[in-house]
């Protein structure tokens, strides 16, 4: 979980996985409005989160998150790895 303990680390991760430029992602940005967000990239992000933390997020989990900060908070709250 240490990989995403800080929101700034999670933002860096999203910018890298979504092939976005530094500064394109910020805490209050709406996930679904990110320039390269789509079904495939959503799956890639979920897959990479699972690789790094063993946390498995569902489509329902993702739908419930509006902003980047919401998604980060969800990951932090699931840091015990439950599904």
């Amino acid at each position: 979980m240490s990989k995403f303990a800080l929101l700034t680390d999670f933002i860096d991760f999203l910018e890298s996985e979504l092939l976005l430029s530094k500064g394109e992602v910020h805490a209050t940005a709406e996930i679904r409005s990110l320039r390269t967000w789509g079904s495939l990239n959503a799956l890639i992000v979920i897959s990479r989160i699972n690789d790094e933390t063993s946390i498995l997020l569902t489509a329902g989990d993702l739908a419930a998150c509006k902003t980047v900060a919401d998604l980060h908070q969800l990951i932090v709250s699931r840091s015990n790895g439950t599904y």
Partner: protein
Amino acid sequence: MALTKYKGIDITGIVNVVPETTEDNLDLELLTPEERAALVNHTGIRFRKVAPESLTIRDLFEKAIVKLLDKTGWKKEEVDVLVCVTQSPEMIIPSVSCRLHGDLKFPGSTMCFDINSGCSGFVYGLHTVGALLAGMETKNAKAILCCGDLSTHLINATDKSVRPIFSDGVAAIAVERNADNSEITGYFNLETAGKGQHAIEMQKENGGQAMKLNGIDVFGYSVKLVPENIQKLMEFSQQEMTFPDVFVFHQANKLINESIRRKLGIPEEKVPYSITDYGNTASASIPMTLGTGWKDAEQHSGWIVVSGFGVGFSVASALIRFSPLFCEPPEEY
């Protein structure tokens, strides 16, 4: 927990048949060039086989059965069981297997039925025909198991989440009971997570129906359930994870399959793929992968793991003795 095993049953041979037309995901106008490159890079799916509307699953199964009979040298009179696993019959009634029985003139002694199953269907079908053969009086009882779908006939061709994934193809598998049926030749773990029924389903659309896929939930169920299913299978068989020569997974996509592989600690060289050239061919994908890669596989124990997972949500794995007389790459219809 459906842990089960059979004795004296072996796969004699496998043939695969695909439609002639190939689509290249790098040319798919539905996606931007960047999306196409990312799709091929992450899912591993470059080419897909697409059947014209005029071609039916019955047509592909027929060609596969005729080739299988030729390769095995079996007479139709010797075939005790004919089972077709498919979710894309061109008509519901009668069953595909009964139509093929009539058209190919199998004898009245051949048992026929269809199984409605998708990505786990090869393993379910293999267990079903194996259990039937094991219970028969006839020594060297024989079964033909057909698996596959025309998934491209079930989707909306403008749907970006399914069009680049699914591909058409079938396999026919010759399964035989040995004269010596004292040895265990297959261990199975067949499981269902019905709470995942909506992850892949037909939904009403524009007056018809189309198959929809929730990629994130399919990923979640797969990487959670499949490793657990295989670990239970190996415990049941009292074998180590290093024992099987290869692990042949349903060809879902590389994101899913590689996550499963890593969770189980299986080395890359033990997990063959056919997904780059043939996409996700539903219940045909495991025999399709064996058909494209088996000749290159190194045999040590002579046992392999096959694992199907998907629509249902259904998960089925088996550790089987595997030393077929032939294992043919796909032939075009």
